[in-house]
């Protein structure tokens, strides 16, 4: 395969996955460069996990070409398995074992010599700050600690690529930040490619490049900054006494489209908000009750592309429920 760019560690071409008539992944093409953080961003059911599972050799594809490190996912599974680390969306630790035992079993499966295994276990545990709890049963860990241990385990065999499927799902904001700190630290200290998924828009900003995926299709792929630049400037949200009239007025003076936002607000985009707002308030034909301006986020990019918010308000409650249910189903 000569047409493959030497810097691309993952190449996906026209990948399709169908589940009994449902197209979970619908003809996507992208590549991941060596040593970058690549993010898959999309709402629930977009096809993120399905794509990762195919790249990781856990799921067969319906059609398309997928290679990782030059190996074909359909034919050279073991070669691929040897060079990837995986942190699944759903917990996959053995909670009746201690952290060290979990790592020990993992190391055995990768044929790491016992002498090296001990040292490496200590190393990865230290990296995620779990050294002091290494002999406790995983059962006694908090959600965030479990996640950190899973990351440590994913790194134990020194993979070339680490997959993180929703690494912060169901965690509280503080713990989420910590997890991202580890990921950034990891990126700095090791030569490693990271492929992550999330539907927390803000969090994927640490990625070098992001693919926004919706209903099985990639609808945008670029650096976070470039994606945000596709939005025409800052986002202004206004609460007024008379939206209809105001919308018409804004359209007239700015030429940009005005949308209805949450709680009776309207929103639109403008290039230079700081000079626009004072003028606007002075000249507005309608009384303005509140106005705010902010830099665009990836969420706005998604909204712009699809007309929908990436996360419904209750999504995180649902994720939590899902985590708990999964937890209970294990024996």
């Amino acid at each position, binding site marked *: 395969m000569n047409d493959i760019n030497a810097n691309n560690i993952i190449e996906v071409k026209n990948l399709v996955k169908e589940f009994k008539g449902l197209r979970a992944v619908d003809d996507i093409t992208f590549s991941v460069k060596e040593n970058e953080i690549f993010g898959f961003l999309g709402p629930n059911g977009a096809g993120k996990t399905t794509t990762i599972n195919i790249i*990781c050799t856990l799921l067969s594809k319906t059609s398309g070409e997928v290679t990782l490190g030059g190996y074909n996912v359909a034919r050279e599974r073991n070669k691929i398995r*040897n060079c990837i680390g995986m942190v699944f969306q*759903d917990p*996959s630790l053995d909670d009746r074992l201690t952290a060290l035992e979990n790592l020990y*079993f*993992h190391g055995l499966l990768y044929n790491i010599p016992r002498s090296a295994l001990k040292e490496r276990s200590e190393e990865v545990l230290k990296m995620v700050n779990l050294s002091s709890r290494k002999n406790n049963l995983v059962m006694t860990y908090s959600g965030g600690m479990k996640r950190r241990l899973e990351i440590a385990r994913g790194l134990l065999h020194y993979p070339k690529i680490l997959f993180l499927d929703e690494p912060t799902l169901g965690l509280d904001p503080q713990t989420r930040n910590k997890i991202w700190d580890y990921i950034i630290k990891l990126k700095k200290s090791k030569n490693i490619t990271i492929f992550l998924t999330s539907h927390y828009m803000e969090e994927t900003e640490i990625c070098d490049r992001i693919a926004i995926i919706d209903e099985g299709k990639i609808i945008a792929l670029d650096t976070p900054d470039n994606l945000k630049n596709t939005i025409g400037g800052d986002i202004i949200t206004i609460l007024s006494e008379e939206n209809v009239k105001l919308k018409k007025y804004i359209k007239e003076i700015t030429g940009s489209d005005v949308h209805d936002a949450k709680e009776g607000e309207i929103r639109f985009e403008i290039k230079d908000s700081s000079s626009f707002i004072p003028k606007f308030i002075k000249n507005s034909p309608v009384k303005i009750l509140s106005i705010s301006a902010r830099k665009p986020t990836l969420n706005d990019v998604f909204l712009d592309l699809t007309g929908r918010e990436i996360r419904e308000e209750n999504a995180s409650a649902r994720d939590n429920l899902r985590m708990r249910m999964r937890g209970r189903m294990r024996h």
Partner: protein
Amino acid sequence: MKKELIGVYTIWLRDIKRYFRDRPRIIASFAQPILFLFVLGTGIASSFSTFGGGSGGDFLNFMFPGIVGMTVLFTSFFSAMSIVWDREFGFLREVLVTPISRTSIVVGKLLGGSTIAMIQGAIILLFSPLLKIPITFVIFFKIIGIMFLVAMTIATLGIVLASVIKSMQAFQVITNFLLMPMFFLSGALFPLNNTVKWMNVVAKINPLSYGIDAMRFAMLNNPAFQLYPLWLDIVVLASVTVVMSILGSFLFGRQD
């Protein structure tokens, strides 16, 4: 090759470690056999005098190998079935991305489940003095061997079913419509040679009845209780195990 052996060992060791850490499970697993043996068994045995049969003591002796068989049956079947939910929700997902072949995973799981079943069965043997069944060293090892074979047979069946069914809901159905009938029609609780014809036929295709038969032979060696010669028991159990484990690792290795 060495890598695969380590893989088998790892999967096995994990199951054993988990087992010994799960005290509630160990204790709970004795509730059922004790109930069967000392409540149901004693009750039925004492009813022999009411209905004017022979001595009830023989019945308890007859039933004892069946209860050991029951323990082995349920333990190995459930550990084998755990391969399903472990795959969806647990540790096994992680194993599936490691460079270990699917066959090694299946073999490790089979050996793990069978070892645990064997240990559980051996603990039930501790009740044998209460029933005045003498268990010598030699008999003990014979029983251990047979328990292991029976456990393997049942575990392979469990893995095949698990790979085909793949849903937790179907699990209850399997327990009620397959496992319980298999147990009742295995000759564990009553002799099968004097019952109605259809039961006799079902017993012939039920692999567990060969296992119970062999177990009874090893423990009691009473020709009146034997259905088949020992060699036939062993051949049937071994063949089912071989066929089912090949089928099981094939089915388990299939990708979705």
